[in-house]
């Protein structure tokens, strides 16, 4: 297997992993935006209007990014968007931890039954962020080389 082919394979594996995780995370929120809104509200970071808009649109941004990251032409943009979302999630969760809030993270559903925010959810997001950054940077470099 050539080096380029191996890199391509790794890029596809990363894209499929990110796509699957984000689609899996988005679907329950799309199905019940009200539960997701409650999750956002528990972070106590946004005004009322912001909570509603985020509950309506964020799951769709996640779902679209999950779909577009599988499309090589849009991979860099989708991975960049995913990385930006993960940074926001990390900041929100870190701030909740710092404030001692015992809340569910709202990552994969809006339900309060989900696991609470902790170092494990921060670590998971950090790993996903690393994958997204590799996809975005490597994809940009490849595009530059082809040009």
């Amino acid at each position: 297997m050539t080096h380029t082919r191996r890199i391509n394979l790794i890029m596809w594996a990363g894209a499929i992993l990110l796509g699957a995780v984000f689609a899996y995370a988005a679907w329950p929120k799309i199905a019940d935006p009200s539960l997701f809104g409650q999750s956002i509200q528990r972070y106590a970071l946004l005004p009322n209007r912001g909570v509603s808009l985020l509950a309506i649109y964020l799951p769709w941004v996640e779902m679209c990014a999950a779909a577009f990251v599988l499309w090589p032409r849009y991979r860099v943009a989708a991975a960049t968007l995913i990385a930006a979302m993960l940074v926001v999630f990390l900041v929100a969760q870190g701030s909740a931890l710092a404030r001692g809030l015992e809340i569910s993270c709202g990552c994969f559903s809006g339900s309060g039954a989900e696991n609470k925010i902790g170092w494990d959810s921060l670590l998971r997001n950090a790993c996903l962020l690393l994958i997204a950054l590799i996809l975005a940077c490597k994809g940009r470099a490849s595009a530059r080389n082809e040009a």
Partner: protein
Amino acid sequence: MLKHICIILVTAICAGTAANLLSPNRLAWSQDWSTRMETLATKAGLNVVSLEQVRMHVDTGSAMILDARSLDLYGQGHIPGAFSCPTDDMDHTYPDVASMLIPDLPVLVYCAGKECEDSMTLGKRLLQDGFTNVLIFVGGYAEWSGAASEDTP
């Protein structure tokens, strides 16, 4: 790349708008989320009580008070007379706590504050198990301790 990001965002905005207009679970574009816990608690059949009512129950002992937060947080401070019943260890602690509740006496549940859902989980479980007068203090320990520190000269 910016153009591609815009395409993804526009697609998401269109899909989100269409879904929210067509979905049976649609959200109001703007609503008061700060009182949503109270609304949900009332819908679930729990009786929402104020800080003043909690104080009255504490003073008169007219309700069994359950703290739904973790044992650690309970240890750091709790409403006087409250028993610990952490929802993160419900299978273990709930049966013991439920067995000592007096059916005719109201049960008051609370957790950390407006952002937590543990008191709601515990309250619903009590209703399922046949306790008919379950009170919930949505403001939780945050409101209680905040008021206590204001009262301290």
